[in-house]
């Protein structure tokens, strides 16, 4: 490659992957990389980080000092060449940046085509290290005072609160995931959380899930005009047979209006709408599934199913129950690095397990998941491992197991993915090697 080479004291004595190391000529140093003593595989997460490091162009002195200290302490330091940048301004920057550096940089054995490199420079700036076999890893610079480095941020916002350019794509992905989840998994649907805001005569209804909004205004006999608005999922609205949720009828108009306690028509209407939104009947249309608070008990009569009255952790808002199905969500984020959450599905229907898996696969979230583990088990009348009479009587006597004990429980464990679609937001936690 042409252009100015960025060099340092790094002179690798061995080749990588058995290939001879040639001089990597040219390119611009944008990303601060180093070759650690132990080769580290570069991950996409690193690339996501380096997306943010674009802003290191204007890094303050603090970072420069940190980099200098790091470079002084690591003999194998190597500045990554960001190939394909040949404009003069970039050359000047590169020359200025490389001034404290000495030595030569070994060449690559896997040359990036100029066109790809150019695109990589603008679109995926951290792809370039993969074209350099002499780069074994990326060193990141965690800072205790992030505000000292403007532009270096993790997350969707910069330290000054300004949103990153990728925030739109991130929001879209999240909305899609949540909406699809709400649609497909009946017993794990996300209820729509709506808010009504009033500015003068204008009522604004917003929902946290991508929904279709329906608003009605009518006058009850002898009462103030009443706004009604509800949210439902877009796919339901797109269908031909969009019915009003049955739960909508459960809220009596006098109840709603009495909560307002206002005489002004417009204000009362707004309060009525707000009260309506706050009621539990504000759910997506998919919530019309018949639900019941009771759980059919399995073989062990003394054992209540999770979520039943005997459960310590029973919270109705956290447990989705139907007549024959219970689904519970558990979060393992920060507890187990290989999993992020798991679902516990308790059902009498074996098909429900497949339906849950299909629902997961149908969500946009499925593209971000990998290695879904399932643990299937069923409840018995009594344990065969016990010495009691009940356990002894329950030992196999020739009857098929399915005739003896109905299917009761199954657990689906879902592991968050490494792999899947490339991150579109450049966030650091997208570790997708």
């Amino acid at each position, binding site marked *: 490659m042409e252009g100015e080479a960025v060099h340092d004291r790094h002179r690798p004595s061995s080749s990588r992957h058995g290939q001879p190391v040639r001089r990597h000529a040219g390119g611009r140093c944008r990303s601060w990389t180093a070759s650690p003593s132990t080769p580290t595989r570069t991950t996409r997460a690193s690339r996501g980080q380096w997306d943010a490091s674009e802003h290191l162009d204007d890094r303050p002195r603090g970072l420069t000092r940190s980099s200098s200290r790091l470079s002084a302490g690591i003999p194998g330091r190597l500045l990554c060449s960001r190939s394909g940048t040949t404009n003069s301004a970039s050359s000047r920057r590169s020359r200025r940046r490389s001034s404290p550096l000495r030595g030569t940089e070994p060449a690559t054995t896997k040359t990036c085509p100029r066109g790809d490199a150019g695109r990589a420079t603008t679109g995926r700036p951290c792809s370039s290290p993969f074209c350099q076999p002499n780069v074994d890893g990326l060193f990141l610079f*965690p*800072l205790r005072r*992030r505000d000292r480095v403007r532009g*270096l941020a*993790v*997350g*969707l*916002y910069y330290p000054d609160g300004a949103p990153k350019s990728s925030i739109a794509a*991130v929001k879209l*992905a*999240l909305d899609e*995931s*949540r909406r699809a*989840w709400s649609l497909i998994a009946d017993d*794990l649907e*996300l209820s729509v959380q709506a808010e009504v805001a009033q500015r003068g005569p204008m009522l604004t209804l917003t929902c946290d899930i991508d929904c279709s909004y329906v608003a009605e205004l009518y006058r009850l006999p002898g009462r103030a005009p009443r706004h009604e608005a509800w949210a439902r999922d877009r796919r339901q609205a797109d269908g031909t047979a969009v019915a009003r949720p049955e739960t909508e009828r459960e809220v009596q108009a006098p109840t709603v209006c009495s909560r307002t306690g206002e005489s002004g028509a417009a204000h009362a209407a707004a309060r009525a709408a707000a009260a309506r939104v706050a009621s539990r009947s504000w759910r997506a249309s998919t919530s019309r599934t018949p639900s019941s608070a009771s759980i059919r008990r399995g073989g062990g009569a003394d*054992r*209540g*199913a*999770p979520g039943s009255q*005997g*459960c*310590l*952790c029973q*919270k109705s*808002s*956290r447990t*989705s129950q139907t007549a024959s199905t219970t689904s*519970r*969500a*558990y*979060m*393992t*984020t920060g*507890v*187990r690095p290989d*999993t*992020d*959450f*798991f679902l*516990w599905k308790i059902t009498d229907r074996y098909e429900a397990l497949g339906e849950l898996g299909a629902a997961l696969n149908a969500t946009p*979230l499925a593209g971000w998941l990998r290695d879904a583990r*399932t*643990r*299937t*088990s*069923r*409840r*018995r009348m009594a*344990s*065969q*491992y016990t010495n009691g009479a009940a356990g002894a009587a329950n030992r196999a006597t020739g009857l098929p*197991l399915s005739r003896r004990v109905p299917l009761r*429980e199954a*657990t689906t*464990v879902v592991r*968050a993915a490494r792999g899947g679609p490339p991150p579109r937001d450049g*966030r*650091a*936690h997208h570790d997708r090697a």
Partner: protein
Amino acid sequence: MKKFPGIKNHTTYSFGIDDQEFMTAFECAEPADFMHLMLRLRDSEASAYTERDTPIFVGQHVTIREALAALDGASARVEL
């Protein structure tokens, strides 16, 4: 289990339908209680016949909304 009233046990069996013999699921409000229970069960006779007791998944019971929020990081902004 009577000594640990704060822990609810759900033991189910998997022989023939999955890779393990049985599964145990515990619910408790305080993980420390569960640790004490496991410590007691280590001395039980059945524990000697247990070849493998992993993996163990410890999860916090949340709504699916909270689980998704934690999954995509929407619930928190990382501070360096």
